[in-house]
């Protein structure tokens, strides 16, 4: 067990971190919002926390708190502008945000190190912190889903118009959720920077956003275990296939496609599907 942990603790850390991040998107998928803002919001958190710890001599906890605050604020601002867009227009606007942030990071050399990135970031993120945070996030999401807020979320997902006709402020409700997901992304960004000890603008682009939102979809967008399963698979698979750089892309693609085609409710439904297959 200990040996296993030592051999794979990098991968385990990444699984934990990516699971935390996936919950940010999971919250939004619950009300039918497919957001690609994660990369941009992570970047806000990551660069701020690096700057605070490396340039200002802050310790880790307050730097992370500042990262969360900044990313929440950014999400609040972005959300109040783009949440009135419907469906794919919303997705595209969040993508535009992420790309604008990435390009700013690419060009603002003095703060971000430009395309070369920032090296020598102190490693402050520990595995136990990630475990604790993931547990906290899972508990919070679980509690929220069981509460009146969760009921409201399901109602908004089922029929937004009906909910707003009933006199509820759907816009404000969505904005609150988007801000919460921004907090998670900012936290994840700060943790990621102090885990990898290196960041570059490419870490926070389109692909990062896509991977984060794919995790819950793949794992199961309506099951609380979905984000963890999806994020773990998406993190472990590339590592496991490291023996072949080119086959890796192909096999990940095949695995993703297979999951989408044969497990429409996500990987969490695998046992059910399997049992049904055996039974028939």
């Amino acid at each position, binding site marked *: 067990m200990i040996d296993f942990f030592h051999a794979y603790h990098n991968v385990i850390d990444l699984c934990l971190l990516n699971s935390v991040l996936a919950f940010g998107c999971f919250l939004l*998928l619950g009300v039918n919002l*497919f957001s690609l803002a994660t990369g941009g919001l992570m970047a806000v958190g990551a660069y701020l926390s690096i700057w605070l710890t490396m340039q200002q001599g802050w310790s880790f906890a307050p730097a992370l708190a500042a990262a969360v605050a900044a990313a929440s604020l950014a999400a609040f601002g972005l959300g109040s*502008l*783009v949440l*009135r*867009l*419907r469906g*794919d*227009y919303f997705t*595209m*606007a969040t*993508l*535009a*945000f992420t*790309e*604008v942030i990435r*390009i*700013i990071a*690419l*060009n603002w050399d003095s703060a971000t190190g430009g395309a070369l990135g920032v090296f020598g970031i102190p490693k402050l993120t520990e595995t136990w912190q990630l475990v604790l945070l993931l547990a906290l996030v899972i508990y919070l999401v679980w509690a929220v889903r069981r509460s009146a807020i969760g009921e409201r979320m399901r109602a908004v997902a089922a029929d937004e118009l009906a909910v707003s006709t009933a006199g509820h402020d759907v816009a404000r409700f969505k904005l609150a959720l988007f801000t919460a997901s921004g907090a998670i992304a900012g936290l994840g960004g700060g943790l990621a920077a102090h885990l990898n000890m290196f960041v570059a603008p490419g870490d926070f682009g*389109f*692909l990062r956003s*896509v991977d984060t939102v*794919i995790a819950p*979809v*793949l794992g199961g*967008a309506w099951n609380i275990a979905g984000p963890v399963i999806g994020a773990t698979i998406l993190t472990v698979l590339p590592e496991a296939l490291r023996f072949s*750089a*080119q*086959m*890796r*892309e*192909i*096999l*990940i*693609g*095949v695995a*993703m*496609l297979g999951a*989408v*085609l044969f497990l*429409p409710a996500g990987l969490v439904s695998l046992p059910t599907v399997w049992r049904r297959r055996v039974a028939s």
Partner: protein
Amino acid sequence: MLLQQLVNGLSLGAVYAVFAIGFTLVFGVMNVLNLSQGAVFMWGAYVGLEVVRKLALPLPLAILAAAGAAGLLGVLSEVLVFRPLQRRGAHRWMGMVGSLALARILIGLAQEIFGTQVVRYPDNALAGAAVELFGARLQLLQIVAIGAALAMVIALAALLRFTNLGRAIRTVAFSETVARLVGVPVDRVRLATFFVSGALAGGAGVLWSLLFQSVSPFMGDGILLKGLTVLILGGLGNVLGALVGGLLLGLVEVASVVAVGSGYRDAVGFGLVLLILLTRPTGLFATRETKRA
């Protein structure tokens, strides 16, 4: 100087437009976002390159071959991803994720077959030629690219307006249910639409590779983002909007390079998208609800 920049912007924009029109056509007809379009574009570029290199065929034939092969890849994305998902009534996210998975497979295959090195089309007479016009030296290639892009767009417009297939496509775009009721073979129309969409992406791939002298397995990512930008600029599912949006994006990008340097070139388009969405929440032109395809 101004003329020079105008041609630079228009040739860039023409490639964006061809790519985005294929993109928006599938969106307008089937209401799906096919995110493997960038990988199809890349494959078009490689097929064109192989045809020029190995078979020594002239450029127009290479474009045709690339468009044909890329069209078949478009068909593949319908058969492999979108049709089974639609049959099952899967959530539209599944289509996006499935098409991204297909893109990964296509990119991986390209790395496996062609390697990861950036390669270029062999030099030919067209690449070096230039014309003098009002004191500006314009590359002949740029003008050919603009012409080829216009030809593809006109061919598509004619197809949509004057042929039975075009009428069928427009009916399906209006409503699949209505199309089935009046006896349109919806499945075949969907296949044809994906073929046309892929073919346009493949044609754009060859034009792009000629203009920028570089082909690589990863060239699709950038154009995918540009395609999405144009999609918003022009209004989702609006073919004419995509043409205008593409040209506009090319011009704006070139103008921004002149004005503020090349660093922020790629941000200008997305900034424009944010700005437009905030003032006109359904894009610059007619909405999908009022006018599709």
